[in-house]
């Protein structure tokens, strides 16, 4: 917790780690949920990896959409900045120009906040601070850029706890008799979500990390086998749960029971003749298309031969 005495050029930042209580009526923004896309995180890490020598942390602008209580962060770009002690210099022109360039390609995004990586703490060796005193200055700058209250995203790259922490904050000012003394950064719930195609790409990358997964991503049959094994595992888990409830080992939970019931009901019960017909139809379609494509390929080679012999 920073002391309340004001130092030149910055207003101290207080960090509150507890999840916020329900928003009080006087707050102007009622954001309670932040969703971030993986591309933003990868971009932040990339920027951090490429930072200048001697820079403790990097900052950048977050772009996205605000939807009532949820803010969705879909894109970001890096902004050059320098900070020393209590002073901060931000590339304002760069920010404006880069924003204009980005908006050319994607008109729907607006500035929703800013990101930063964790700052190494000079006082405690090996510790990293998420919010620094200079953060509130930067936050004020972004408050002027963004329509609503800006969101502050912090990515911890120090990997101190063997995990990469992501935190989202929003800031409110602490005033005593209309004198702004400090800014409080409240943590907001953050989750990583992505669209289907992004998910596919991320899965491929996650799979590429382990050798078994990498083999699977190359070979279709392997991947199919993995999917089926996973499905079988899940079915077995559900069935052991039901068995243990029936033999009175576990107290039954109604919601789980109802979920299992619904998912089992969603499987269509097909009579064997109907299934056979469907199967034969699909099979015939596939066979016909294979035949057609073979015929087309033969025709293609003939036409290529003809094309080659023209002019001779």
């Amino acid at each position, binding site marked *: 917790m920073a002391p309340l005495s004001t130092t030149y050029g910055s207003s101290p930042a207080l960090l509150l780690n507890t999840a916020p209580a329900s928003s009080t009526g006087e707050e102007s923004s009622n954001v309670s949920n932040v969703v971030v896309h993986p*591309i933003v995180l990868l971009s932040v890490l990339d920027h951090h990896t490429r930072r200048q020598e001697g820079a403790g942390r990097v900052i950048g602008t977050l772009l996205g959409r605000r939807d009532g209580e949820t803010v969705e962060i879909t894109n970001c770009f890096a902004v050059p900045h320098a900070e020393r002690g209590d002073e901060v210099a931000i590339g304002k022109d760069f920010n404006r120009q880069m924003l204009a360039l980005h908006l050319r390609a994607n008109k729907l995004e607006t500035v929703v906040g800013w990101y930063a990586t964790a700052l190494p703490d000079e006082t405690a060796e090996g510790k990293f601070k998420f919010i620094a005193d200079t953060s509130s200055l930067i936050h004020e700058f972004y408050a002027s850029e963004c329509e609503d209250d800006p969101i502050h995203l912090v990515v911890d790259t120090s990997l101190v706890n063997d995990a990469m922490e992501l935190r989202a904050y929003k800031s409110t000012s602490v005033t005593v008799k209309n004198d702004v003394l400090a800014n409080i950064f409240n943590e907001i719930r953050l989750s990583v979500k992505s669209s289907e195609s992004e998910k596919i790409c991320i899965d491929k990358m996650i799979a590429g990390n382990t050798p078994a997964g990498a083999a699977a991503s190359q070979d279709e049959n392997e991947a199919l086998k993995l999917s*089926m094994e996973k499905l079988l595992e899940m079915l077995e888990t559900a069935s052991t749960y039901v068995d243990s409830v029936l033999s009175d080992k576990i107290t039954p939970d109604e919601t789980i029971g109802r979920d299992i019931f619904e998912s089992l009901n969603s499987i269509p019960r097909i009579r064997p003749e109907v299934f056979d017909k469907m199967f034969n139809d699909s099979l015939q379609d596939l066979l016909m298309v294979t035949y057609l494509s073979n015929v087309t390929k033969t025709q293609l080679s003939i*036409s290529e031969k*003809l094309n080659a012999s023209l002019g001779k």
Partner: protein
Amino acid sequence: MAAVIETNAPVTSVKLEGLAALKIIKHCKESLPTMVTGSLLGLMIEDGVLEITHAFPFPEPLDDKGDVVKSAEDAANADDEAAALEGHEFQLEMMKMLREVNVDNNCVGWYQSMYLGSYSTPNLLDSQLSYQTDLSPNAVVILYDPMQTAHGNLVLKCYRLTDEAVRLRQNGKNNFINPRNIFQEVPVTLSNPGLVRSLLRDMGDGLHDGGAAPMDGTTFDRLDLSTNPYLEKHLEFLCSWVDDLAAEQYKFQHFTRNLRANAGGDRKGRKAKEEMAQAIEEGWARNDAPKRMESLLMSNQIRTYCDQVEKFTGEGFGKLFLTSGLHKDDEKRAAA
């Protein structure tokens, strides 16, 4: 590093960083149903590996540009000359800004979204040719298919023109080239730096979900059995492309028949035959001879469609027989 680094080794494989891949995917998906293009930044490392670290989209062309521009060097929309100027300036601005934050700003190629695997068009050929001649012989084009990237497959391919194709285009002759040798596919691997890999591990373990569904949601999409829409689309495309190819072939027939008639097909004797053969050859070198390249590109594309469909039906057979096996099991168990 603003200059393009010239290396002698031709590019044999491409390492695509996750960030660039996600950017390409995001841009193409958001701009559906229009097809879009953008630029690739990266570096050529030794052993013929091209590393792509960044990508940014080209803007949509502004409507009110009245200037005519002379060079379409970096124009991905080769048909709209005003957009070319925008694109070029935009690209320079973007690269300058990225330089300030230490991003590699070597342009090493471009990317385009493709519709169901259609890439073999004269436009793409021309654009790639201009990249390969003006920028670097190792320029590549990355094609991403937002339609086919479903059911757990990521369809992201990388192509470049073969030397043979480049030479042929630069000669301007109307010669034949085997359609398989026009484009050369370069294998793509997804790679990531260390910090990103640790983030991916965390995401894979479900640490950042905020209580939502786990990230391995795509493993079950693969088990989908519906085949019809995919097949129908492909057959539709095949029909129209085969029609176009037939039209092209007819043009050839027509032209050859004219040539033969003009060269006087009635004369007999060996000398007359030689003269006629020569006249025919010259006829093909004329400027108004129908271009062979179009029909070659078409047959390349038709072959690609056939390959895609065959791959799909192969998998479809497997899944279908698996399902029928399960069903027969159920029947037997129900009967027993």
